[in-house]
């Protein structure tokens, strides 16, 4: 168990009701410092609600939380040292990108022009900084949103579905940018998404929420250890020898041939042993990949729920 001063975010029994709707139910979550934490759940599961509680946009009905080891009854003091992009990035359209950033930077005293220009460079908007935001594409607004989250070099970045509304190129740009921030600034990134491949690509830790309940959280590797049955795609030759062996092997639940691979259902912990046995059959193993690990895990949790 992590000590609270090593946790970027710690919630205890966080609950939020909207009338009779339970948006969050007794959520107790720990996000270790220095991780990229993916917060997953279907639409309406409570991801945005939790993020809005953490960023002070919504008041919790019950429970507590600490950010970067700080607790305060004054929510706004917890927002020192964090940057947030909640949902789609919206700005004062009649103002330029630079003025929008300046307006927000003044609130925390980080409004030196050099700092603002540096951020605009980082998010690739420096050349358009004096254009009004109404002339920006959604991708540019999203990048400006990331830029405002970076004001004051925060130790914790909270990003709520940062690739929402972006085309595939924009999504890749934002993901690369998030990865870069994590590497260069060693900041903790708390990222909500319902795009499983996005989280799998970026995150070291995950949390799963369904109907306001946090059903699992921890490092991806730890969680996958307890996954049970998985689907493994094997690229092997000769295929007929491998298929015969796999169909007769007790470790294998089922084996099917696809266009390019043999698809095997097997318990996660039996994978190393199966690969060792297969190698002994004079079969050439070119690759063994677990497709959609996170998807399988997510669906398993959803079924359990």
């Amino acid at each position, binding site marked *: 168990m992590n000590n609270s001063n090593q946790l970027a975010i710690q919630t205890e029994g966080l609950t939020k009701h*909207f009338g009779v709707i339970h948006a969050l139910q007794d959520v107790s979550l720990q996000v270790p410092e220095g991780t990229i934490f993916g917060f997953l759940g279907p639409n309406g599961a409570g991801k945005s609600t939790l993020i*809005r509680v953490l*960023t*002070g*946009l*919504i*008041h919790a009905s019950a429970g507590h939380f600490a950010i970067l080891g700080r607790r305060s009854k*004054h929510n*706004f*003091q917890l*927002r*020192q040292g964090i940057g*947030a*992009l*909640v*949902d*789609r*990035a*919206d*700005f*004062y*359209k*009649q*103002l330029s990108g630079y*003025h929008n950033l300046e*307006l*927000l930077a*003044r*609130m*925390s005293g980080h409004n030196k022009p050099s700092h603002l220009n540096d951020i605009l460079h980082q998010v690739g908007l420096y050349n358009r900084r004096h254009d009004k935001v109404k002339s920006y594409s959604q991708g540019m607004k999203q990048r400006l*949103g990331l830029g*405002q989250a970076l004001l004051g070099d925060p130790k914790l970045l909270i990003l709520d579905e940062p690739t929402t509304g972006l085309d595939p190129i924009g999504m890749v740009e934002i993901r690369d940018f998030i990865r870069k921030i994590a590497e260069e600034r060693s900041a903790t990134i708390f990222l909500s998404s319902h795009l499983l491949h996005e989280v799998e690509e970026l995150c070291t830790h995950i949390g799963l929420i369904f109907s306001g309940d946090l059903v699992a959280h921890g490092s991806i590797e730890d969680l996958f250890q307890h996954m049970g049955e998985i689907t493994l795609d094997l690229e092997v030759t000769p295929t007929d020898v491998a298929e015969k062996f796999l169909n007769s092997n007790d470790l294998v639940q089922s084996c099917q041939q696809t266009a390019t691979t043999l698809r095997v259902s097997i318990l996660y912990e039996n994978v190393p042993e199966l690969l060792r046995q297969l190698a002994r059959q004079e079969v050439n193993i070119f690759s063994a990949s677990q497709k959609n690990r996170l998807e399988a895990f997510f669906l398993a949790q959803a079924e359990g729920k």
Partner: protein
Amino acid sequence: MIYLTLIRNELFKIFSYWRTYMSYFFILLLVPLFFWGFSVGGSSIERQLTNAMGDHFLMVGKLVNAFTVAYFVLNFLWIHIPFLIALVGGDVLAGEEAVGTYRVYLTRPVSRWRIFLSKSIATLLYTLSVILFLGIMSIGVGALWMGLGDLVVLQDGILVLPAGTAFVRFALAYGLSFLNMSMVATLAILFSAMVKNAVGPVIGTMAIVIIFFAISSLPLDFFETIRPFFFTTYFDSWTKAFYDPIPWDYLWLSTWTALLHIVLFLGGAFLIFKRKDILS
């Protein structure tokens, strides 16, 4: 220091919208139109005033001057200026929620109280600037156009105020007008805290002003009883600045009433704003 920064932010935002300038354009267009109208048709008004005075006075100089026109211009305060003030006050909170900028503005490390206070102060500063602009345009430009002179007021008889006194009376009238318009501005802020679009608060504020005016004017005993509690009852307090003697008791009452309403409207707005969950 943070308050000054936040007020500066809010003023910057208010003055970045073109609708903010509608008040100034309105005054800039209509006040000269009044002066033009009075300079063209002023002689007939002067004749009417002279006839009303009968043979009791000997009038020397121009009866229609900048002060006379400025006095008439102050009647904009009934509906036109309140509407323009509500346009800005109604947008100050709801406008942010409507366009989604709360999500970036309220996630900064600043308390909602500070943000609310800065928004309210910025709105009141805007209100003050509109009243000052009205005064400068009416008396300043009027003095250049028509010159100054004694102010003749027809109110329960005829009152002639010397030019020197008229300045002081106008200063008092504009001060009272600012208080009255601040009530409108803060009422708009209250509505603005309640809803998620900027149109509702403007309509709500003007509806309240018009309904209260209408009820106030009904000659029924019941309304006579409750009329002192309506904030619109004191909208005419600026007219009392031109009475002789000045009814200070009434003016103090109207001032305290205005201040009480301002505090109530802002207090209510803050409670709503503070507890508000931002879901947009």
